[in-house]
């Protein structure tokens, strides 16, 4: 036998179709012997009947109209916000087509001028390379000339030195001859005297 509190709890759950199957027997046997719980059950049933019979007013149509008016306004505002939000997410050039055109033209001009500059620069570099090549050749020729000139100069110097040495030798020979001549003259005179 369960207590009245437990029985009433199970009764309420069973009445709301939330009870367990195995509790039904316990409830039935308790209700047979307990008038208080039977009264509780009857009151619970009557209470539900009374509440169902309480007339329910209907919702005023102005509530729905006002609600729809507010939601319409809010929706328009949200759409506008969403449009602005989406717009702000777009790249700058998509938002301003004229700017896109101007940017395109500027980019094309920049590209063409860059290409022209590159072409001119390439030409210039080619010319400079040729000039450099010519200069190198000239330099080589000049070096050869210089070497020839140096060799010539060396030979000339050698000749001068040789000439000077010969001149010095001749002078020395003349000096020696003169000394020889001077030293031999008294002896000759002696011999001639004797």
């Amino acid at each position, binding site marked *: 036998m369960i207590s009245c509190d437990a029985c*009433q*709890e199970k009764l*309420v*759950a069973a009445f*709301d179709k*939330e009870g367990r199957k195995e509790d039904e027997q316990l409830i039935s046997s308790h209700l047979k012997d307990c008038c208080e719980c039977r009264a*509780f059950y*009857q*009151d*619970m*049933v*009557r*209470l*539900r*009947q*009374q*509440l169902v*019979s*309480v*007339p*329910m*007013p*209907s*919702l*005023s149509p102005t*509530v*729905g109209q*006002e*609600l*729809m008016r*507010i*939601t*319409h306004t*809010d*929706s328009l505002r*949200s*759409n506008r916000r*969403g449009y602005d939000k989406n717009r702000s997410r777009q790249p700058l050039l998509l938002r301003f087509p004229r700017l896109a055109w101007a940017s395109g033209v500027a980019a094309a001009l920049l590209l063409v001028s860059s290409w022209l500059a590159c072409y001119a620069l390439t030409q210039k570099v080619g010319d400079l390379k040729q000039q450099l090549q010519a200069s190198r050749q000239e330099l080589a020729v000049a070096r050869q000339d210089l070497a020839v000139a140096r060799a010539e100069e060396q030979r000339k110097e050698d000749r001068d030195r040789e000439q000077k040495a010969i001149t010095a030798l001749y002078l020395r020979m003349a000096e020696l001859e003169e000394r020889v001549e001077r030293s031999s003259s008294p002896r000759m005179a002696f011999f001639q005297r004797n």
Partner: protein
Amino acid sequence: MGTYTDEELMGLAQKQDISAFEELFRRYEQRIFAFFWRLSANRQEAEDGTQETFLRLWKARVRYEPTGRFSTYLFQIAKNHFLHERQKRDRRMDSPQPSARDPAELSSEPASSDRADSPVLAGELQAAVTEAMARLPETLRLVYVLTEQEGMSYKQAAEILDCPVGTVSSRKVQAVRKLRGLLQPFKDEFSGESGGTE
């Protein structure tokens, strides 16, 4: 629109489809109004609550995720609004409301006790039942309205009230006991009204 489920309609409302939201309103307006009316027994309060609930639903549509039943989600909004309004009102009035009274006091003080010995008409009995409902603590009243009058399961009521199923079950028993106590003066008429219906 009639063939769409509630969740599908909410999905459309998320995409700014006003007609989908209107259909949701048509489907639930009377239930939400009845919910507030049964909780407050005040037409104006019930209408304001209904409007505010759907406005909150409209504003929260972007965050809505169809993880559970739509009706649970909607009644959660309604319940939160009801409790929020009650707290605001209690703070404003700075005095205890009938619904917030001590349970012991409520059970000892029957509804309209001065009329206990006088004959009671059917309309008066209904008024007494409504008054008794209004005098239930809010936690018990919410459980009673959801399970008894909205016909929800304990599980769904527990989801709406954000509490365990066992709590819903015990609160329901407490609510029935308190209502019995409050309607004690009308016991004879109460029994007579529904006599023979068992």
